[in-house]
């Protein structure tokens, strides 16, 4: 046989395999339950512009077929155990099902018999979601760190790229740790992230211009740690923290991250000036966040008095770690004079409930405040009992967001720019690795069942050994390249001035 003929046959065979026609089995035996799928996308509400919700069917070593029916048409998928949805067809389905649902029927071949499971719906909201999220990709490590990056992911497809990667400036002798990233009004022309140790400093993009500053002054505890951009002024509220870590011998929370001291500062980006917002004795102030109108600053603070002079503060903090409980405060802010006044505790979690409140975030319409609450401490990502709560800022009523919570840690809640989507960091999957979950928040103030950020390969999370840390919504991508960040990182940081209030 000539080579040409062999090639022709091979091409034909390949085309035949590629064009294998999928159809649902007609003789499937009906099961009375939903199929086991991963991630769990049964009965979830999804944005009108989300990427395909690929999933895997976990009904043993089975062959799988899924039929997705939307008002616009029916599509059938199946690739062994995976249901990998064509992006163009999915976009068509979303368009036609906006405000309605996509019906999903799953069939699995167990042995030589097909089973049909109870169908479920994927509801398509009228509302879209911000096109991007960014997060820090980090192993759930303890003290050590090596490769860290801040990544941005397009939610309408599976595109992902690095915003910054510490290995571009790290060496074996001088490593670099990347910390909290933050954006002003969900946009990226005003953004920041912090770098510690090698080439340390705070990287600030102000009106598109990149600069590196050193926010540590002689009068402040540390450089800026947890940030919050003011929504209208070129100001950033930060906490300053002296942080330590210690380790549980038995408790499955495994780690405690504790502040022995913490204060709040205000950084004026234009003047490169740092001033103190709050540095009360016996108070551990942390996690600032602005109201959408910029007239109030919310933050958490724990009252903690050290009374053992014979040991270091850090040692006493370790001994009394479960006594540290944060409450929620607000302070009025005059954007013109930059004066704070009328500091009030708006939620006393410690005394009345024996609980600790962290990570407050306010909805873009200013009506609701989400936060994470657990029995003690400030680092709820490591606290299995941490759950998401919401305060109605008008009535100051607090409710537990049952739909968002699990038996494992939920923390770092954040809102999309239109206020219709909530993203939380959850460890519900396996207790150790943090994954972003997105939930619809309807106009009545009700959160719906959250879904895990979809990935092209539904088994992605099984193999991915990094956590999604501080997931934040963005309405546009960061356009400064990693190389530009790296070049700036290598420059000396401009020291911030201290301004007395």
């Amino acid at each position, binding site marked *: 046989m000539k080579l040409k003929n062999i090639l022709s046959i091979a091409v034909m065979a390949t085309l035949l395999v590629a064009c294998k026609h999928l159809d649902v089995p007609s003789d499937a035996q009906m099961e009375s339950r939903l199929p086991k799928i991963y991630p769990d996308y049964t009965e979830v509400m999804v944005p009108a512009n989300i990427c395909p919700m690929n999933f895997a069917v976990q009904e043993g070593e089975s062959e799988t077929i899924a039929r997705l029916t939307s008002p616009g048409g029916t599509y059938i998928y199946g690739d062994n155990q995976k249901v990998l949805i064509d992006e163009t067809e999915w976009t068509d389905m979303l368009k036609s099902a906006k405000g309605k649902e996509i019906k999903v029927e799953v069939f699995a071949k167990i042995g030589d018999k097909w089973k049909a499971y109870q169908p479920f719906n994927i509801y398509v909201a009228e509302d879209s979601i911000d096109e991007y999220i960014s997060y820090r990709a980090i*192993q*759930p*490590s*303890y*003290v*050590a*760190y*090596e490769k860290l990056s801040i990544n941005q992911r397009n939610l309408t497809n599976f595109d992902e790229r*690095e915003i910054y*990667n510490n*290995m*571009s400036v*790290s*060496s*074996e*002798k001088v490593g670099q740790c990347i910390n909290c990233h933050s954006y002003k009004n969900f946009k990226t022309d005003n953004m920041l992230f912090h770098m510690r140790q090698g080439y340390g400093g705070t990287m600030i993009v102000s009106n598109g211009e990149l600069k590196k500053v050193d926010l540590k002054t002689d009068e402040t505890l540390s450089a800026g740690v947890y940030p919050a951009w003011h929504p209208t002024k070129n100001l950033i509220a930060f906490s300053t923290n002296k942080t330590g*870590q*210690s*380790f*549980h*011998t*038995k*408790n*499955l929370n*495994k780690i*405690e991250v504790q502040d022995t001291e913490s204060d709040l500062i205000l950084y004026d980006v234009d003047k490169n000036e740092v001033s103190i917002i709050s540095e009360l004795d016996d108070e551990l102030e942390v996690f600032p966040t602005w109201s959408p109108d910029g007239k109030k600053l919310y933050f958490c603070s724990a009252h903690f008095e050290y009374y053992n002079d014979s040991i270091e503060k850090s040692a006493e903090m*370790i*001994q009394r*770690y479960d006594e540290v409980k944060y409450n929620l405060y607000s302070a009025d802010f005059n954007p013109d004079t930059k004066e704070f006044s009328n500091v009030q505790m708006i939620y006393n979690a410690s005394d009345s409930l024996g609980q600790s409140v962290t990570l407050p975030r306010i909805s873009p319409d200013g009506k609701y405040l989400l936060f994470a609450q657990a029995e003690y401490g400030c680092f709820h990502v490591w606290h299995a009992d941490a759950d998401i709560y919401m305060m109605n800022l008008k009535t100051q009523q607090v409710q537990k967001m049952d739909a968002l919570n699990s038996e494992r840690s939920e923390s770092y809640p954040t809102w999309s720019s239109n206020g219709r989507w909530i993203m939380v960091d959850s460890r519900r*999957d*396996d*207790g*150790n*690795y943090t994954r972003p979950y997105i939930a619809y928040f309807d106009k009545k103030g009700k959160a719906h069942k959250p879904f895990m950020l979809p990935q092209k*390969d539904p*088994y*992605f999370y*099984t*193999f*991915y*050994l990094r956590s999604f840390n501080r997931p934040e919504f963005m309405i546009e991508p960061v356009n400064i*390249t*990693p*190389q530009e960040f*790296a070049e700036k990182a290598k420059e000396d940081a401009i020291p911030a001035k201290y301004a007395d209030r």
Partner: protein
Amino acid sequence: MKKYLKYIYLFAFITVAYILLPVMNGDYLYTIQDNNVFINGHTFMMETVTGEGGWIVWVARYLTQFFYHPWLGSTILILFWVAIYWITIRMFNIKDKWCFAALAIPVFLLYDLLSYGYWIYYAKAPGFPFVPTLLVLFVLLYTWGIIYLTRNLHISWHLKGLIAIGPLAIIPYISHLLWPTSWHWHLDYQPKNGILTTLTDKNFRHELRMYRALDEFRFEDVLNEMPTDGQAPTNLMVLYKNIALMHTGQMDRMFETNNCGIKPDTGDSPKIRTSLLGAPIIYYMFGHINYSYRWAMENAVQYGLSFRSLKMMTRCAIFNQEFEVAAKYISLLKSSTFHRQWAIEHEAWMMNSTNFIQSKEYQTLSPLLSDNKNILDGDDGLCEQYLLEYFSDLNHPSTPLLENVTMCMSLWAKDYYAFCVHFYDYVNNHPNSPIPLLYQEGAILLGNAEESPITLDQFRFDDVVANKYNGFIQDYNQLLQQGIKEQEMAKRLKPLYGNTYWWYYYFYNDFNIY
């Protein structure tokens, strides 16, 4: 004869390579693969090929896993070296009598592989046994290809050179544009004495073998690795040995079996740490599951994910009943070639708790797990010091094994206060049982010390212990009066008292934590 020279050279090289690799250094190669990871599948491939070194590293990591069977991995590597030898001869048309020169590159590559020593734990260059070989082979094949393709072109050698080298020079630039963090090899420290460690340091090899035996719960094999020729063991070997004694019910023999560890002589390795070399397995064997998991994770973060870390994290997750995360690690291990069976066996533990409870690992460790008190703490990276303090300070141990561990660890730490408290409890808890000789040796020494928190006047020591102790004190004082220096005293008293706690207490002052 001349025409066979190239075969003779090659045969000699292959023989030497086999002797130096699987015959002499099988454990070294096994450990290298244990510190490597290769997961079959798209996700791991994409993660690797978009990282430093790209495809070469992915292939190198794939091949490194074959050192699971050192003979197999060595054979693959040697075959590559044979290819390099042949291509070099063909490319440069080397005459038979000069063919030994073509062995220069394979010899260097062999030297390179053996030159890591303790750096097999630190090297942040995944797939390092194969990366240089693959690169050399790639460059040789590429150059050979260029020579072949341009053989009929009437162009100058300069232009041929440019055609050959140009694309190679552009690759890093393109790579930098596409993947800005690629092509950074962060091995600023270079191993200097590694070849000596690999080839001549017996303790290094003992440590490698002891680790593997511990990992497989072969405690007798751990004990058999302790040197009997008077050579001082490393601290790590002492720790491994005492773990094996603990789990074979012989911990009270720890001072009979050379408990005087030294720091390994690594010359240039400023970062040698017990925490990296063995903390996960050491903590695991002492029932400190959280700390074992922590160090497996820390090492994976800092020095790269490895089969070793994955297996330790799996075990810890199972012991902590964190089955979802254990399943995650197991699914990764099941996607490997040589650790699949291990993963399947451990998966069975999760599927059926009876399997787990009946397993040797659970049976061995469960007596250490009954102490349920949680402590928020930290080891500052000093594993052995932490364990000594932890068990010395542990009050009211709840099992006989824990009781013995607290006694022995407080003796090891020379913590007379802790020991006396434990001894007092022990005597009260076992009124009708004979007291092990080691505890009597400790009590007669520490209990009579001025600082002792309790009095042992009422306690009757066995005559053999009391007489020997009196003899020791007498001999010691005699040598002291003669002005004999401590080192010499230790030497002279060792034949009679070297296996007693007193000799350890008086003469081992170089407890070098690292």
